[in-house]
Protein backbone atom coordinates (compact mmCIF):
# COMPACT_ATOMS: atom_id res chain seq x y z
CA UNK A 1 0.00 0.00 0.00
CA UNK A 2 2.84 2.31 0.85
CA UNK A 3 4.43 1.38 -2.45
CA UNK A 4 1.32 2.36 -4.34
CA UNK A 5 1.22 5.69 -2.53
CA UNK A 6 4.86 6.25 -3.41
CA UNK A 7 4.27 5.49 -7.03
CA UNK A 8 1.42 7.94 -7.08
CA UNK A 9 3.35 10.66 -5.36
CA UNK A 10 6.49 11.05 -7.46
CA UNK A 11 8.49 8.91 -9.79
CA UNK A 12 11.73 8.07 -8.09
CA UNK A 13 14.00 8.79 -11.03
CA UNK A 14 12.72 12.33 -11.53
CA UNK A 15 15.26 15.11 -11.04
CA UNK A 16 14.85 17.98 -8.62
CA UNK A 17 14.49 20.68 -11.24
CA UNK A 18 12.26 18.51 -13.34
CA UNK A 19 10.02 18.09 -10.31
CA UNK A 20 10.07 21.75 -9.32
CA UNK A 21 9.34 23.00 -12.83
CA UNK A 22 6.63 20.53 -13.70
CA UNK A 23 3.16 22.06 -13.89
CA UNK A 24 1.68 18.92 -12.36
CA UNK A 25 3.74 19.45 -9.23
CA UNK A 26 2.15 22.82 -8.64
CA UNK A 27 -1.50 22.21 -9.39
CA UNK A 28 -4.07 19.80 -8.05
CA UNK A 29 -5.22 18.85 -4.60
CA UNK A 30 -1.75 17.91 -3.38
CA UNK A 31 0.02 20.46 -5.54
CA UNK A 32 2.49 22.99 -4.18
CA UNK A 33 0.02 25.86 -4.55
CA UNK A 34 -2.64 24.06 -2.54
CA UNK A 35 -0.32 22.90 0.25
CA UNK A 36 1.50 26.24 0.43
CA UNK A 37 -1.90 27.94 0.59
CA UNK A 38 -2.77 25.65 3.47
CA UNK A 39 0.39 26.68 5.30
CA UNK A 40 -0.14 30.38 4.61
CA UNK A 41 -3.77 30.25 5.78
CA UNK A 42 -2.86 28.62 9.08
CA UNK A 43 0.04 31.03 9.66
CA UNK A 44 -2.13 34.03 8.81
CA UNK A 45 -4.65 32.87 11.40
CA UNK A 46 -1.84 32.34 13.91
CA UNK A 47 -0.34 35.79 13.34
CA UNK A 48 -3.72 37.52 13.41
CA UNK A 49 -4.59 35.82 16.70
CA UNK A 50 -1.18 36.53 18.21
CA UNK A 51 -1.28 40.19 17.16
CA UNK A 52 -4.79 40.57 18.56
CA UNK A 53 -3.54 39.24 21.89
CA UNK A 54 -0.08 40.77 22.05
CA UNK A 55 -0.42 44.27 20.56
CA UNK A 56 -3.27 45.59 22.76
CA UNK A 57 -1.76 43.97 25.84
CA UNK A 58 1.77 45.21 25.20
CA UNK A 59 0.64 48.70 24.24
CA UNK A 60 -1.66 49.05 27.22
CA UNK A 61 0.92 47.81 29.73
CA UNK A 62 3.52 50.16 28.29
CA UNK A 63 1.03 53.03 28.25
CA UNK A 64 0.29 52.71 31.96
CA UNK A 65 4.01 52.11 32.57
CA UNK A 66 3.53 48.67 34.08
CA UNK A 67 4.61 45.20 33.21
CA UNK A 68 8.40 45.37 32.91
CA UNK A 69 8.37 42.09 34.76
CA UNK A 70 5.74 40.60 32.49
CA UNK A 71 7.89 41.51 29.49
CA UNK A 72 10.96 39.73 30.85
CA UNK A 73 8.87 36.77 31.89
CA UNK A 74 7.21 36.44 28.50
CA UNK A 75 10.58 36.43 26.78
CA UNK A 76 12.02 33.80 29.08
CA UNK A 77 9.02 31.53 28.85
CA UNK A 78 8.73 32.14 25.13
CA UNK A 79 12.18 30.88 24.39
CA UNK A 80 11.74 27.82 26.58
CA UNK A 81 8.76 26.53 24.59
CA UNK A 82 9.79 23.73 22.26
CA UNK A 83 7.10 24.07 19.63
CA UNK A 84 7.31 20.54 18.29
CA UNK A 85 7.10 18.97 21.73
CA UNK A 86 4.27 21.28 22.72
CA UNK A 87 2.27 20.48 19.60
CA UNK A 88 2.88 16.79 20.26
CA UNK A 89 1.66 17.22 23.81
CA UNK A 90 -1.48 18.93 22.54
CA UNK A 91 -2.46 16.26 20.00
CA UNK A 92 -3.99 13.82 22.52
CA UNK A 93 -5.56 16.65 24.47
CA UNK A 94 -7.09 18.12 21.33
CA UNK A 95 -8.50 14.70 20.40
CA UNK A 96 -9.85 14.14 23.87
CA UNK A 97 -11.70 17.45 23.82
CA UNK A 98 -13.06 16.66 20.40
CA UNK A 99 -11.14 19.24 18.38
CA UNK A 100 -9.64 16.60 16.16
CA UNK A 101 -6.15 15.65 15.08
CA UNK A 102 -5.23 18.94 13.48
CA UNK A 103 -4.63 21.79 12.94
CA UNK A 104 -5.45 22.93 16.48
CA UNK A 105 -2.39 21.54 18.28
CA UNK A 106 -0.04 23.22 15.83
CA UNK A 107 -2.18 26.36 15.80
CA UNK A 108 -1.94 26.72 19.57
CA UNK A 109 1.79 25.90 19.64
CA UNK A 110 2.53 28.41 16.86
CA UNK A 111 0.45 31.08 18.58
CA UNK A 112 2.42 30.59 21.78
CA UNK A 113 5.57 30.92 19.67
CA UNK A 114 4.36 34.11 17.98
CA UNK A 115 2.98 36.04 20.95
CA UNK A 116 6.32 36.75 22.72
CA UNK A 117 8.10 38.61 19.88
CA UNK A 118 5.03 40.71 19.09
CA UNK A 119 4.36 41.48 22.75
CA UNK A 120 7.98 42.35 23.41
CA UNK A 121 8.37 44.70 20.44
CA UNK A 122 5.04 46.41 21.16
CA UNK A 123 5.87 46.87 24.82
CA UNK A 124 9.39 48.14 24.16
CA UNK A 125 8.41 50.40 21.29
CA UNK A 126 5.55 52.07 23.14
CA UNK A 127 7.66 52.39 26.31
CA UNK A 128 10.34 54.17 24.36
CA UNK A 129 8.19 56.78 22.71
CA UNK A 130 9.75 60.11 23.66
CA UNK A 131 7.96 61.36 26.82
CA UNK A 132 8.26 64.89 25.45
CA UNK A 133 6.06 63.93 22.51
CA UNK A 134 3.50 62.32 24.81
CA UNK A 135 3.48 65.44 27.01
CA UNK A 136 3.00 67.61 23.96
CA UNK A 137 0.07 65.47 22.88
CA UNK A 138 -1.51 65.77 26.30
CA UNK A 139 -0.83 69.48 26.30
CA UNK A 140 -2.70 69.75 23.01
CA UNK A 141 -5.68 68.31 24.85
CA UNK A 142 -5.69 64.78 23.50
CA UNK A 143 -7.54 62.39 25.75
CA UNK A 144 -5.80 59.35 27.13
CA UNK A 145 -7.16 56.91 24.57
CA UNK A 146 -6.10 59.14 21.71
CA UNK A 147 -2.61 59.58 23.15
CA UNK A 148 -2.24 55.82 23.03
CA UNK A 149 -3.82 55.29 19.62
CA UNK A 150 -2.80 58.37 17.66
CA UNK A 151 0.59 59.13 19.18
CA UNK A 152 2.21 56.22 20.99
CA UNK A 153 1.03 53.43 18.72
CA UNK A 154 1.64 55.46 15.58
CA UNK A 155 5.22 56.16 16.60
CA UNK A 156 5.77 52.56 17.68
CA UNK A 157 4.22 51.07 14.56
CA UNK A 158 7.33 50.32 12.55
CA UNK A 159 9.01 48.55 15.46
CA UNK A 160 5.82 46.59 16.19
CA UNK A 161 5.72 45.52 12.56
CA UNK A 162 9.27 44.25 12.89
CA UNK A 163 8.06 42.05 15.71
CA UNK A 164 5.15 40.84 13.62
CA UNK A 165 7.52 40.07 10.77
CA UNK A 166 9.85 38.07 13.00
CA UNK A 167 6.84 36.17 14.35
CA UNK A 168 5.43 35.53 10.88
CA UNK A 169 8.70 34.23 9.44
CA UNK A 170 9.10 32.04 12.47
CA UNK A 171 5.55 30.70 12.13
CA UNK A 172 5.94 29.92 8.43
CA UNK A 173 9.28 28.27 9.07
CA UNK A 174 7.93 26.17 11.93
CA UNK A 175 4.56 25.21 10.47
CA UNK A 176 6.01 22.28 8.44
CA UNK A 177 6.15 20.27 11.68
CA UNK A 178 2.39 19.96 11.20
CA UNK A 179 2.97 17.43 8.45
CA UNK A 180 5.00 15.30 10.85
CA UNK A 181 2.16 15.42 13.35
CA UNK A 182 -0.35 14.02 10.90
CA UNK A 183 -1.40 17.27 9.29
CA UNK A 184 -1.16 18.99 5.93
CA UNK A 185 0.76 21.97 4.70
CA UNK A 186 4.02 22.45 2.89
CA UNK A 187 5.93 20.09 5.17
CA UNK A 188 4.22 17.13 3.52
CA UNK A 189 6.79 16.85 0.73
CA UNK A 190 9.62 16.57 3.21
CA UNK A 191 7.73 14.03 5.29
CA UNK A 192 6.88 11.90 2.26
CA UNK A 193 10.38 12.23 0.87
CA UNK A 194 11.95 11.09 4.13
CA UNK A 195 9.42 8.29 4.46
CA UNK A 196 9.95 7.08 0.90
CA UNK A 197 13.67 7.69 0.90
CA UNK A 198 13.21 10.02 -2.06
CA UNK A 199 15.86 12.74 -2.17
CA UNK A 200 14.06 14.75 -4.83
CA UNK A 201 11.06 15.21 -2.59
CA UNK A 202 13.21 15.89 0.46
CA UNK A 203 15.30 18.54 -1.30
CA UNK A 204 12.33 20.04 -3.12
CA UNK A 205 10.29 20.20 0.06
CA UNK A 206 13.15 21.79 1.98
CA UNK A 207 13.69 24.39 -0.74
CA UNK A 208 9.98 25.24 -0.81
CA UNK A 209 9.81 25.68 2.98
CA UNK A 210 12.87 27.92 3.00
CA UNK A 211 11.58 29.90 0.02
CA UNK A 212 8.18 30.50 1.60
CA UNK A 213 9.85 31.74 4.79
CA UNK A 214 12.06 34.10 2.81
CA UNK A 215 9.06 35.29 0.80
CA UNK A 216 7.14 36.00 4.00
CA UNK A 217 9.96 38.17 5.29
CA UNK A 218 10.14 40.07 2.02
CA UNK A 219 6.37 40.54 1.87
CA UNK A 220 6.36 42.06 5.33
CA UNK A 221 9.14 44.40 4.31
CA UNK A 222 6.91 45.76 1.56
CA UNK A 223 3.90 45.84 3.89
CA UNK A 224 5.89 47.90 6.41
CA UNK A 225 6.74 50.50 3.77
CA UNK A 226 3.11 50.84 2.83
CA UNK A 227 1.56 50.96 6.27
CA UNK A 228 3.93 53.16 8.31
CA UNK A 229 2.75 56.79 7.99
CA UNK A 230 5.05 59.02 5.99
CA UNK A 231 5.50 61.47 8.87
CA UNK A 232 6.59 58.74 11.25
CA UNK A 233 9.07 57.41 8.73
CA UNK A 234 10.57 60.89 8.33
CA UNK A 235 10.78 61.23 12.08
CA UNK A 236 12.60 57.95 12.43
CA UNK A 237 15.05 58.85 9.72
CA UNK A 238 15.76 62.13 11.43
CA UNK A 239 16.28 60.25 14.69
CA UNK A 240 18.59 57.76 13.04
CA UNK A 241 20.77 60.51 11.66
CA UNK A 242 20.92 62.10 15.08
CA UNK A 243 20.32 65.38 13.31
CA UNK A 244 20.02 67.57 16.40
CA UNK A 245 22.55 70.32 16.89
CA UNK A 246 22.56 70.02 20.66
CA UNK A 247 25.08 67.51 21.98
CA UNK A 248 22.90 66.21 24.78
CA UNK A 249 19.98 65.70 22.46
CA UNK A 250 22.20 63.90 20.05
CA UNK A 251 23.31 61.54 22.75
CA UNK A 252 19.76 60.82 23.77
CA UNK A 253 18.70 60.21 20.20
CA UNK A 254 21.47 57.74 19.65
CA UNK A 255 20.70 55.98 22.92
CA UNK A 256 17.12 55.67 21.80
CA UNK A 257 18.14 54.30 18.47
CA UNK A 258 20.45 51.75 20.02
CA UNK A 259 17.78 50.74 22.48
CA UNK A 260 15.21 50.57 19.76
CA UNK A 261 17.56 48.34 17.81
CA UNK A 262 18.09 46.16 20.84
CA UNK A 263 14.65 44.57 21.16
CA UNK A 264 15.15 43.11 17.73
CA UNK A 265 18.57 41.86 18.74
CA UNK A 266 17.33 40.36 21.96
CA UNK A 267 14.40 39.04 20.00
CA UNK A 268 16.69 37.03 17.85
CA UNK A 269 18.19 35.75 21.04
CA UNK A 270 14.82 35.24 22.62
CA UNK A 271 13.32 33.22 19.84
CA UNK A 272 13.29 29.66 21.05
CA UNK A 273 11.21 28.51 18.17
CA UNK A 274 11.98 25.85 15.73
CA UNK A 275 11.77 28.04 12.73
Amino acid sequence: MILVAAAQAVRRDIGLWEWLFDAGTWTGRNGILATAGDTVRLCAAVIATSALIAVPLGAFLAHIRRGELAATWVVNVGRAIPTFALAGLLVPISLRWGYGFEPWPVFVALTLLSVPPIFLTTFTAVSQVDPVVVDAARGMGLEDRRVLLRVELALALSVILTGVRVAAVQAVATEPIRAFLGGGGLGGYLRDGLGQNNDTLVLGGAILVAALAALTGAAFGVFERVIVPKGVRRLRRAGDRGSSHNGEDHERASVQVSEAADPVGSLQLADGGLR
Partner: protein
Amino acid sequence: MILAQATNPIIRWEYLRDEWDKVRTALIQHIELTLLAVALGLVVASVLAAIALRYRWTANPITTFTAFVYTIPSVALFGLLVPYTGVSRTTAVIPLVGYTLLILVTSILTGFRSVPPAVRDAAEGMGLSPARRVFTVELPLAVPYIITGIRVATVTTVGLVTVAAIVGEGGLGRLILDGLRRTFWTPMTVGASLSIILALVLDLSLWGLGRALTPWTRRGGPQRAATR
Protein backbone atom coordinates in the same frame (compact mmCIF):
# COMPACT_ATOMS: atom_id res chain seq x y z
CA MET B 1 -6.06 -2.15 18.68
CA ILE B 2 -9.62 -1.01 19.18
CA LEU B 3 -9.32 -1.96 22.80
CA ALA B 4 -6.13 0.03 23.07
CA GLN B 5 -7.93 2.96 21.47
CA ALA B 6 -10.71 2.76 23.98
CA THR B 7 -8.29 2.97 26.86
CA ASN B 8 -5.76 5.40 25.48
CA PRO B 9 -5.23 7.88 28.26
CA ILE B 10 -3.00 10.91 27.83
CA ILE B 11 -0.51 9.19 30.05
CA ARG B 12 -0.32 5.62 31.29
CA TRP B 13 2.16 5.39 34.11
CA GLU B 14 2.97 1.69 33.57
CA TYR B 15 4.66 2.77 30.36
CA LEU B 16 7.39 4.51 32.30
CA ARG B 17 8.10 1.23 34.07
CA ASP B 18 7.64 -1.17 31.17
CA GLU B 19 9.49 0.81 28.55
CA TRP B 20 11.87 2.68 30.83
CA ASP B 21 14.87 1.49 28.81
CA LYS B 22 13.50 3.18 25.73
CA VAL B 23 12.72 6.37 27.58
CA ARG B 24 16.16 6.42 29.17
CA THR B 25 17.91 5.84 25.87
CA ALA B 26 15.93 8.66 24.31
CA LEU B 27 16.66 11.00 27.20
CA ILE B 28 20.37 10.23 27.13
CA GLN B 29 20.52 10.72 23.38
CA HIS B 30 18.70 14.03 23.77
CA ILE B 31 21.20 15.25 26.36
CA GLU B 32 24.14 13.99 24.27
CA LEU B 33 22.95 15.73 21.13
CA THR B 34 22.26 18.96 23.01
CA LEU B 35 25.62 19.05 24.76
CA LEU B 36 27.50 18.01 21.62
CA ALA B 37 25.81 20.71 19.54
CA VAL B 38 26.30 23.47 22.12
CA ALA B 39 29.94 22.45 22.76
CA LEU B 40 30.78 22.37 19.06
CA GLY B 41 28.83 25.58 18.60
CA LEU B 42 30.85 27.22 21.35
CA VAL B 43 34.12 26.21 19.70
CA VAL B 44 33.07 27.50 16.28
CA ALA B 45 31.53 30.65 17.79
CA SER B 46 34.69 31.39 19.80
CA VAL B 47 36.79 31.22 16.65
CA LEU B 48 34.35 33.40 14.72
CA ALA B 49 34.11 35.90 17.57
CA ALA B 50 37.89 36.01 17.95
CA ILE B 51 38.22 36.80 14.25
CA ALA B 52 35.51 39.45 14.50
CA LEU B 53 37.22 41.09 17.48
CA ARG B 54 40.70 40.95 15.97
CA TYR B 55 39.76 42.08 12.46
CA ARG B 56 36.94 44.52 12.99
CA TRP B 57 35.76 44.62 9.40
CA THR B 58 34.82 40.94 9.61
CA ALA B 59 32.37 41.50 12.48
CA ASN B 60 29.52 42.54 10.23
CA PRO B 61 29.83 39.77 7.65
CA ILE B 62 30.20 37.18 10.41
CA THR B 63 27.09 38.36 12.27
CA THR B 64 25.14 38.58 9.02
CA PHE B 65 26.18 35.09 8.05
CA THR B 66 25.20 33.55 11.40
CA ALA B 67 21.91 35.47 11.29
CA PHE B 68 21.27 34.08 7.82
CA VAL B 69 21.91 30.51 9.00
CA TYR B 70 19.57 31.14 11.91
CA THR B 71 16.68 32.08 9.63
CA ILE B 72 16.77 28.84 7.62
CA PRO B 73 13.77 26.77 8.71
CA SER B 74 15.02 23.85 10.78
CA VAL B 75 12.84 21.29 9.03
CA ALA B 76 14.25 22.50 5.72
CA LEU B 77 17.88 22.42 6.86
CA PHE B 78 17.58 18.88 8.20
CA GLY B 79 15.94 17.92 4.92
CA LEU B 80 18.57 19.64 2.77
CA LEU B 81 21.35 17.63 4.40
CA VAL B 82 19.72 14.21 4.10
CA PRO B 83 20.79 13.59 0.48
CA TYR B 84 24.41 14.35 1.43
CA THR B 85 24.92 13.01 4.93
CA GLY B 86 22.08 10.49 5.04
CA VAL B 87 19.90 9.72 8.01
CA SER B 88 22.65 10.05 10.56
CA ARG B 89 23.91 11.90 13.58
CA THR B 90 25.90 14.25 11.36
CA THR B 91 22.68 15.36 9.66
CA ALA B 92 21.23 16.18 13.05
CA VAL B 93 24.28 17.88 14.52
CA ILE B 94 25.25 20.23 11.66
CA PRO B 95 22.01 22.29 11.77
CA LEU B 96 21.94 22.21 15.57
CA VAL B 97 25.45 23.69 15.68
CA GLY B 98 24.52 26.21 12.99
CA TYR B 99 21.56 27.49 14.97
CA THR B 100 23.65 28.11 18.11
CA LEU B 101 26.14 30.31 16.27
CA LEU B 102 24.14 33.55 16.06
CA ILE B 103 23.32 33.50 19.75
CA LEU B 104 26.80 32.48 20.88
CA VAL B 105 28.77 34.81 18.60
CA THR B 106 26.54 37.74 19.55
CA SER B 107 26.89 37.07 23.25
CA ILE B 108 30.67 36.62 23.09
CA LEU B 109 31.04 39.85 21.11
CA THR B 110 28.75 41.74 23.51
CA GLY B 111 30.68 40.34 26.45
CA PHE B 112 34.10 41.40 25.23
CA ARG B 113 32.84 44.76 24.01
CA SER B 114 31.37 45.43 27.43
CA VAL B 115 34.83 45.42 29.00
CA PRO B 116 35.50 49.06 29.97
CA PRO B 117 38.46 50.55 28.09
CA ALA B 118 39.84 51.73 31.42
CA VAL B 119 40.13 48.14 32.63
CA ARG B 120 41.87 47.13 29.43
CA ASP B 121 44.28 50.05 29.74
CA ALA B 122 45.01 49.19 33.36
CA ALA B 123 45.78 45.58 32.44
CA GLU B 124 48.07 46.77 29.68
CA GLY B 125 49.71 49.24 32.04
CA MET B 126 50.39 46.46 34.51
CA GLY B 127 52.40 44.79 31.77
CA LEU B 128 50.09 41.90 30.98
CA SER B 129 50.72 40.24 27.66
CA PRO B 130 47.80 40.42 25.22
CA ALA B 131 47.00 36.73 25.75
CA ARG B 132 46.99 37.07 29.52
CA ARG B 133 44.94 40.23 29.29
CA VAL B 134 42.32 38.46 27.22
CA PHE B 135 42.12 35.34 29.37
CA THR B 136 42.62 36.71 32.89
CA VAL B 137 40.95 40.12 32.62
CA GLU B 138 38.59 40.40 29.68
CA LEU B 139 37.21 36.86 29.62
CA PRO B 140 36.05 36.84 33.26
CA LEU B 141 34.31 40.18 32.71
CA ALA B 142 32.62 38.79 29.60
CA VAL B 143 31.50 35.58 31.29
CA PRO B 144 28.05 36.77 32.41
CA TYR B 145 27.13 37.66 28.82
CA ILE B 146 28.59 34.45 27.45
CA ILE B 147 26.73 32.32 30.00
CA THR B 148 23.48 34.05 29.07
CA GLY B 149 24.19 33.21 25.45
CA ILE B 150 24.96 29.58 26.29
CA ARG B 151 21.72 29.33 28.26
CA VAL B 152 19.62 30.60 25.36
CA ALA B 153 21.52 28.39 22.92
CA THR B 154 21.02 25.33 25.11
CA VAL B 155 17.30 25.85 25.63
CA THR B 156 16.83 26.46 21.91
CA THR B 157 18.84 23.36 21.08
CA VAL B 158 16.81 21.14 23.42
CA GLY B 159 13.73 22.22 21.48
CA LEU B 160 15.38 21.72 18.11
CA VAL B 161 16.66 18.24 18.95
CA THR B 162 13.05 17.02 19.01
CA VAL B 163 12.73 18.18 15.40
CA ALA B 164 15.85 16.20 14.50
CA ALA B 165 13.67 13.14 15.09
CA ILE B 166 12.50 13.53 11.50
CA VAL B 167 15.97 12.54 10.33
CA GLY B 168 16.12 9.58 12.65
CA GLU B 169 18.03 11.11 15.56
CA GLY B 170 16.29 13.39 17.96
CA GLY B 171 16.16 11.72 21.37
CA LEU B 172 12.84 12.49 22.98
CA GLY B 173 11.45 13.61 19.64
CA ARG B 174 11.58 9.97 18.61
CA LEU B 175 9.15 9.13 21.40
CA ILE B 176 6.77 11.79 20.09
CA LEU B 177 6.87 10.40 16.55
CA ASP B 178 6.72 6.85 17.87
CA GLY B 179 3.59 7.58 19.88
CA LEU B 180 2.00 9.23 16.89
CA ARG B 181 2.75 6.26 14.67
CA ARG B 182 1.27 3.84 17.19
CA THR B 183 -1.64 6.20 18.06
CA PHE B 184 -0.53 5.68 21.64
CA TRP B 185 -0.46 8.96 23.51
CA THR B 186 1.73 8.06 26.45
CA PRO B 187 5.10 8.22 24.62
CA MET B 188 4.09 11.57 23.10
CA THR B 189 3.21 13.00 26.48
CA VAL B 190 6.34 11.57 28.08
CA GLY B 191 8.65 12.74 25.27
CA ALA B 192 7.19 16.23 25.11
CA SER B 193 7.08 16.76 28.87
CA LEU B 194 10.58 15.42 29.41
CA SER B 195 12.02 17.71 26.74
CA ILE B 196 10.39 20.74 28.35
CA ILE B 197 11.65 19.66 31.77
CA LEU B 198 15.12 19.02 30.35
CA ALA B 199 15.22 22.54 28.93
CA LEU B 200 14.30 24.03 32.29
CA VAL B 201 16.78 21.86 34.21
CA LEU B 202 19.68 22.68 31.86
CA ASP B 203 18.78 26.38 31.94
CA LEU B 204 18.75 26.42 35.73
CA SER B 205 22.03 24.49 35.98
CA LEU B 206 23.76 26.89 33.62
CA TRP B 207 22.35 29.83 35.55
CA GLY B 208 23.81 28.31 38.71
CA LEU B 209 27.13 27.72 36.94
CA GLY B 210 27.17 31.35 35.82
CA ARG B 211 26.59 32.55 39.36
CA ALA B 212 29.31 30.28 40.71
CA LEU B 213 31.76 31.53 38.09
CA THR B 214 31.13 35.20 38.72
CA PRO B 215 30.83 35.76 42.47
CA TRP B 216 31.70 39.44 42.05
CA THR B 217 28.50 40.23 40.15
CA ARG B 218 26.45 39.40 43.23
CA ARG B 219 28.15 41.83 45.55
CA GLY B 220 26.94 44.74 43.48
CA GLY B 221 28.86 47.88 44.40
CA PRO B 222 31.61 49.52 42.46
CA GLN B 223 32.54 46.61 40.19
CA ARG B 224 29.04 46.54 38.91
CA ALA B 225 28.99 50.22 38.30
CA ALA B 226 32.29 49.91 36.46
CA THR B 227 31.01 47.32 34.01
CA ARG B 228 28.08 49.50 33.01
